[in-house]
């Protein structure tokens, strides 16, 4: 069975400091992994995806994530937080193209000035 665990329900950072949102996955297959962001009253937007190519994946808005098979992790990072990064972030796994995505419970990122 496939599952995703987001280790922090809420992360608070100051503007200009690094962001780390942690995600661990469980999968019997070689998964594809994603991070989606959801701003208040907005739809879900894909930040980045890993699909068995380079293990370090760069996404939009300066975010990146590294796939570590030995640790079954796919943590999301950004060197310097911006106020506009405040949102809900979801780590997502998919084991086959065209199948349903499996979402983590989400991490709320707060950014203070």
């Amino acid at each position, binding site marked *: 069975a496939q599952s995703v665990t987001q280790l922090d329900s809420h992360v608070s950072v100051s503007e200009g400091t690094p962001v780390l949102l942690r995600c661990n996955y469980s999968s019997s297959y070689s998964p594809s992994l994603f991070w989606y962001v959801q701003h208040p009253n907005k*739809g879900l937007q894909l930040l980045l995806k890993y699909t068995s190519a380079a293990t370090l994946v760069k996404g939009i808005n300066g975010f990146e994530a590294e796939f570590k098979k030995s640790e079954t992790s796919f943590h999301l990072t950004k060197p310097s937080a911006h106020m506009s990064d405040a949102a809900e972030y979801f780590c997502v796994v998919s084991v086959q*193209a065209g199948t349903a995505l499996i979402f983590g419970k989400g991490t709320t990122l707060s950014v203070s000035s």
Partner: protein
Amino acid sequence: GAGVSQSPSNKVTEKGKDVELRCDPISGHTALYWYRQRLGQGLEFLIYFQGNSAPDKSGLPSDRFSAERTGESVSTLTIQRTQQEDSAVYLCASSLYSGDSYEQYFGPGTRLTVT
């Protein structure tokens, strides 16, 4: 181009009533998905349509939930005899099912409140 659209954006209904939620996928996308997002939770898969294949209904929580899709266009999610636990945001997504393409594009959702 136009993204996935959903209507209504908000729906308040009384317990026991039936509701219909609509999703218009991105033109040309063969796959369509419905998810439910309860307050403070991640998304739960409900149902998946791919072309003319039989839909994957494995995520539907009860027989009060059903969905239809006309060809590769509009889909309707119907909830009969609504209960308070059905209150959630219902999200629709579509994707261009093509080889390794996984990306699903999400609509803004319909917020359903059952009173």
